[in-house]
């Protein structure tokens, strides 16, 4: 895909790295199987509240995070199970958080929408659309201030582009040259509203022009494409402290949340099926088979291993204790 806004392609393409591709395939499968288990657990009443699944969008988190160092910051909206897992929070700790257990990554106080692991640079899960976009720029402000070489990646959906905080933040990030990547996951629907019904400019990447910011339009159903584009953005951020807007076009195969049926009334079954034919996992698996890296048996073995890992996470979450009642009043204020 081509970029319509200023798009310096200053980094050379990475030669095929079999190991990296295998890792990405494994990570996408982990997210997929984890989310399937989360849906099951939700149906069983083990998970409460809101629960937004990432199925269909796995290539975005996996491709982007593969381009980061361990100490880089990642901050997300409420559809963040995938990013949390790939940033290094264990499936046990994420599942336990979804179950509201004391062993969860936010001690059972955050839930599905508020996963955190500060030590791993995973700065949340935020529930107000677009509310975390300024936080990302603030993290980048701190990194630049302290001259660390950290980069911040902010994941948000296309609906957040209509929020004032998006525009205010992109402006300041550009004026102050902050090392931040605004990664818009355009899955085409803000809950049940098609983006073109509520946005005057539907090529989100064009918004970068208003803020004199580098930008790229990226195929989000291909982890390798996402990886390459993010790598270029990371380099701009790390070397020159320049922000980037990435519009990553993707699709969610499930409903907006667990209360939204598979395709709802706002999109057709045919459309969902058509998009499922672009499944990012199938896509990368096919490539690896074509390259002679794996065969079906090897793929099945990886899948079985991940199934076991996710089953173990459910068991761990199930058997973990609820938070102690005294926890109610802890963590309101820091010492």
């Amino acid at each position, binding site marked *: 895909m081509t970029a319509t806004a200023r798009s310096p392609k200053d980094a050379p393409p990475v030669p095929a790295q079999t190991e990296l591709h295998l890792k990405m395939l494994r990570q996408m499968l982990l997210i997929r199987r984890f989310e399937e288990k989360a849906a099951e657990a939700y149906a069983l009443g083990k998970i409460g509240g809101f629960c937004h699944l990432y199925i269909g969008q796995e290539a975005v988190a996996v491709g982007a995070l593969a381009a980061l160092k361990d100490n880089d*910051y990642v*901050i997300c909206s409420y559809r963040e199970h995938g990013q949390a897992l790939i940033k290094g929070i264990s499936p046990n700790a994420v599942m336990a958080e979804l179950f509201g257990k004391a062993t*969860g*990554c*936010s*001690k*059972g*106080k*955050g839930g599905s929408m*508020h996963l*955190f*692991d*500060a*030590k791993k640079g995973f*700065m*949340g899960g*935020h*529930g*107000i659309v677009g*509310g*975390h*976009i*300024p*936080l*990302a*720029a*603030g*993290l*980048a*402000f*701190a*990194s630049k*201030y*302290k001259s660390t070489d950290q980069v911040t990646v902010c994941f948000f959906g296309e609906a957040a582009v209509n929020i*004032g*905080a998006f525009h*205010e*933040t992109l*402006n*300041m990030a550009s*004026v*102050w040259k902050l090392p931040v990547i605004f990664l818009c996951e355009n899955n085409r629907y803000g809950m049940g509203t098609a983006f073109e019904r509520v946005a005057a400019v539907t090529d989100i990447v064009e918004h970068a022009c208003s803020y004199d910011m580098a930008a790229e339009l990226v195929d989000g159903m291909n982890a390798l494409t996402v990886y390459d584009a993010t790598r270029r953005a990371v380099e701009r951020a790390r070397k020159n402290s320049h922000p980037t807007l990435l519009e990553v076009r993707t699709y969610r195969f499930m409903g907006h949340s667990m209360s939204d049926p598979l395709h709802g009334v706002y999109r057709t079954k045919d459309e969902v099926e058509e998009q499922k034919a672009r499944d990012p996992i199938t896509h990368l698996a096919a490539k690896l088979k074509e390259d002679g890296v794996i065969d079906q048996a090897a793929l099945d073995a990886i899948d079985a291993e991940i199934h076991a890992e996710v089953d173990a996470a459910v068991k761990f979450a199930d058997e973990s204790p609820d938070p102690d009642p005294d926890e109610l009043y*802890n*963590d*309101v*204020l*820091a*010492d």
Partner: protein
Amino acid sequence: MPTLTYRDALNQALREEMQRDPNVVLMGEEVGVYQGAYKVSRGLLEEFGPKRIVDTPIAELGFAGIGVGAAMGGLRPVVEFMTWNFALLALDQIVNSAAKMLYMSGGQIRVPIVFRGPSGAALQLASQHSQAWESWIAHIPGLKVVAPATPADAKGLLKSAIRDNNPVIVLEGEMLYNLKGDVPDGEHIVPIGKAEIKREGSDVTLVCHSKTLTVAQKAADQLAEQNVSAEVLDLRSLRPLDEAAILESVKKTNRAVVVEEGWPHTGIGAQVVDLIQRDAFDDLDAPVQRVTQADVPMPYNKFLERAAKASPEKVVAAARKVLYLDGD
């Protein structure tokens, strides 16, 4: 002890804390080149440079959120709002991000940030520029809220706020910036959560804070002429509230009037009265009275504005009522 204006006391606190801790930054509209809309940041750009004194665009939501993010990343930002009226646009970041981050992250992520600026009415600024913020902002767990009334308290509380590991709201006052008073040099810290008796008395407690301290003091002078000894209790902090100090004073005087700048409905005074009726019921000799802004948007006309505001006369009338001095 040196005499300083409230404005210069705040300036001194900022300067000293920025000298003390390289992670303190000041950001907001006009804080740098312009030297502050109310000159609180005068001279700071020259001393600390543009890296630490950051002029922002007019984008309260955005820069409040960037401040919170910078605090999450290890800095101690002081975010100045030109006035708190404009901070309504930033409320999502103050409430949903700053106040809740520690809790929803299970205690992992602290947000040591100060949001400060003038709150409440000045003179004839009309309805959109005259709003008192106390009861809006003191409602929120995860925040601390202070409202200093004197130059010394302004310095001491701002220093405490900057050193605190939590988001702290500092409500200043446009009408207070020129107020002069004695301010200790150097390390002068006023702890958050401690009220202070600004004038001792025995017949009635006048509970106040921020600009209403002056109102209460004038009322106390007038009451003294009427042979009534009023105690003036300055809350200084609104969250946490110094409940012990309120109860102790009421147990001594047995009568109270609560004065505030904000509207009556669900105001700070309502919280104070709730405390008194619950924990000092047997000590009360009369129902507690409140003096607030009239329950209307602030009018522009100066006579209407005066009529809307809390005044010494209204406080005197309320005090006489709790003392049953006018019959009934």
